[in-house]
């Protein structure tokens, strides 16, 4: 082994022996440190995975959704609008969509009723999301009765449940046939909730939206990328909220760690004097302390991060779920697909490992440059 490497190995060995000598102090420090990294990493991993999930879900969404506005409010859009869109170049497909919200006072929850564009549903049948099935205690073959806009009760037979893998977006969904939808909400034929547009070239989406605004001035185009940005903002806000809550804990830890790491006991000062007197260089002493800081902080970082990974992706982030996921009666149950953001990982590493290591080195620098003859006196 090269001399330089062997030297570092000796220093690390001695550092480990030193850490074990002050076991109570260092284990306590490691535990608190790990907990802080765990909490911060859990929030980061969870929000990042949610963002990924949202982006993944929206991948299949139309590039543009066109809504008609009346007095600044979203209103139904007619077939004539659909026909006029045909004149805009770049639009690949266009389709009117039917969807709406229904408040069910029985369970105090909002459902999303929708006519699926890609599957046929028999009139009087419904396919429901797992959240509704759980809340109302329904399974295939059961009946669901809802009060329509005409004040009459409309009964649906549950033909099936939606795949639970898509629960993040389908938890509150009720898929129905078009005639039922129109009858239930009183939407006249030829009217739609909005229009979904597919654009051939993604680069042209903004241009197409611009043309639509000029062609149909009573509408507003909603771009997929804007929806994504909104999701991002929401998750960032929630992440920030939790981070603020954790800030107090982080600050307390900083004070605690600074005190533990930077406070040199008389015994430690004496040891540094001995090591220098028997031939250690100032740089050896500093390196030893660097390893001490690095070993503690790296161990805490790895344990905390691994703990957070398990917490978020295997235990469904039980500790932070209500804040980060939001509140709902029809709470979706879902497991997140593991996603780690390199930049976030690096940021967390920098703000946890780096300050602690510096905090251990600075006071040692002062102690290590003193004359070694102090041990003789």
């Amino acid at each position: 082994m090269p001399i330089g490497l062997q030297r570092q190995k000796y220093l690390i060995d001695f550092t480990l022996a030193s850490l074990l000598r002050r076991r109570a102090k260092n284990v306590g420090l490691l535990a608190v440190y790990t907990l802080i990294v765990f909490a911060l990493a859990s929030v980061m991993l969870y929000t990042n995975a949610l963002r990924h999930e949202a982006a993944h879900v929206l991948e299949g969404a139309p590039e543009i959704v066109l809504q008609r506005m009346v007095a600044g409010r979203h209103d139904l859009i007619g077939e004539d609008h659909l026909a006029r869109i045909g004149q805009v170049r770049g639009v690949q497909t266009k389709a009117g969509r039917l969807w709406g919200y229904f408040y069910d006072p029985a369970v105090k929850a909002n459902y999303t009723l929708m006519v699926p564009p890609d599957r046929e549903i028999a009139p009087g049948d419904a396919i429901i999301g797992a959240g509704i099935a759980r809340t109302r205690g329904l399974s295939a073959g059961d009946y669901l009765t809802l009060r329509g806009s005409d004040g009459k009760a409309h009964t649906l037979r549950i033909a099936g449940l939606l795949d639970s893998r898509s629960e993040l977006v389908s938890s509150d969904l009720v898929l129905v046939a078009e005639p039922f939808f129109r009858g239930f909400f009183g939407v006249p034929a030829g009217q739609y909730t909005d229009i979904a547009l597919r654009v051939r070239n993604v680069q042209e989406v903004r241009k197409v939206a611009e043309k639509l605004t000029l062609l149909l001035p009573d509408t507003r185009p909603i771009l997929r990328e804007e929806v994504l940005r909104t999701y991002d903002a929401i998750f960032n806000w929630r992440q920030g909220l939790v981070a603020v809550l954790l800030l107090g804990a982080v600050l307390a830890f900083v004070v605690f760690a600074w005190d533990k790491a930077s406070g040199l006991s008389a015994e430690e000062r004496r040891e540094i004097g001995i090591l220098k007197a028997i031939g250690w260089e100032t740089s050896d002493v500093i390196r030893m302390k660097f390893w001490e800081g690095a070993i503690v902080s790296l161990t805490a970082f790895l344990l905390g991060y691994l703990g957070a990974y398990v917490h978020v992706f295997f235990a469904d982030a039980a500790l932070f779920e209500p804040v980060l996921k939001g509140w709902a009666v029809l709470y979706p149950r879902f497991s997140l697909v593991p996603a780690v953001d390199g930049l976030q990982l690096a940021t967390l590493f920098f703000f946890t490992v780096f300050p602690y290591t510096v905090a251990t080195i600075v006071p040692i620098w002062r102690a290590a440059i003193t004359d070694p003859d102090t041990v003789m006196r």
Partner: protein
Amino acid sequence: MIELLDVKKAFNQGRPNEFWAIRGVNLTIDANRVTVLKGPSGSGKTTLLSMIGCLSRPTEGRILFETRLLSGLPERFLTAVRRETFGFIFQQFNLIKGVTVLENVMLPAYPLGGPRRRLEARAHTLLAQFGLEAKAGYRAEWLSGGEAQRTAICRALVNDPRVLIADEPTANLDTQLSRDFMAIVAGLKAAGKTVLLSSHDPEVYDCPAVDRVVEMRDGRLARG
């Protein structure tokens, strides 16, 4: 071997509490001899030993090891000279608590970065030589006074230095242990080492193994 030319050492220089611990010492220390610096507390023995052993620098004057000027060396080189040329036995032994006897002995060799197996073998040989082999795995604080001092001697010898410096080595030992220590010193001299001691213990300066006694008083040599 070691030559001191008008060496002076001041503490707190330029301040109201300025104090000259060494006030002009000229001294030559021969190789393969046992030299004792004798004198009362505060006579400057320890300060002089520190400067000879490269633990501190003189305020004025020069210290030469063979023909090499030590007093002007930058800290890094001074440390290297200290590590390779001098071995120290301190009055309080200064072993590191909480680590084993074996590790305490090996500590001065860590910055050299030699192979671990060779270093361990060397430390075990020294411990065996001083009757401490059975205590290799003990923690330093579990040792008796005599054992702690012998461990300190092993530590001082691990880098095979040419000069051994011991500051008041018998201050914490009873008469029998003091005699045992001087017997070890005689053995080291026979092995070709140069030994430099500071003491005001007659068990030390009256010992037949001692070749020369240098008396100090108030930072000066009283008799050479």
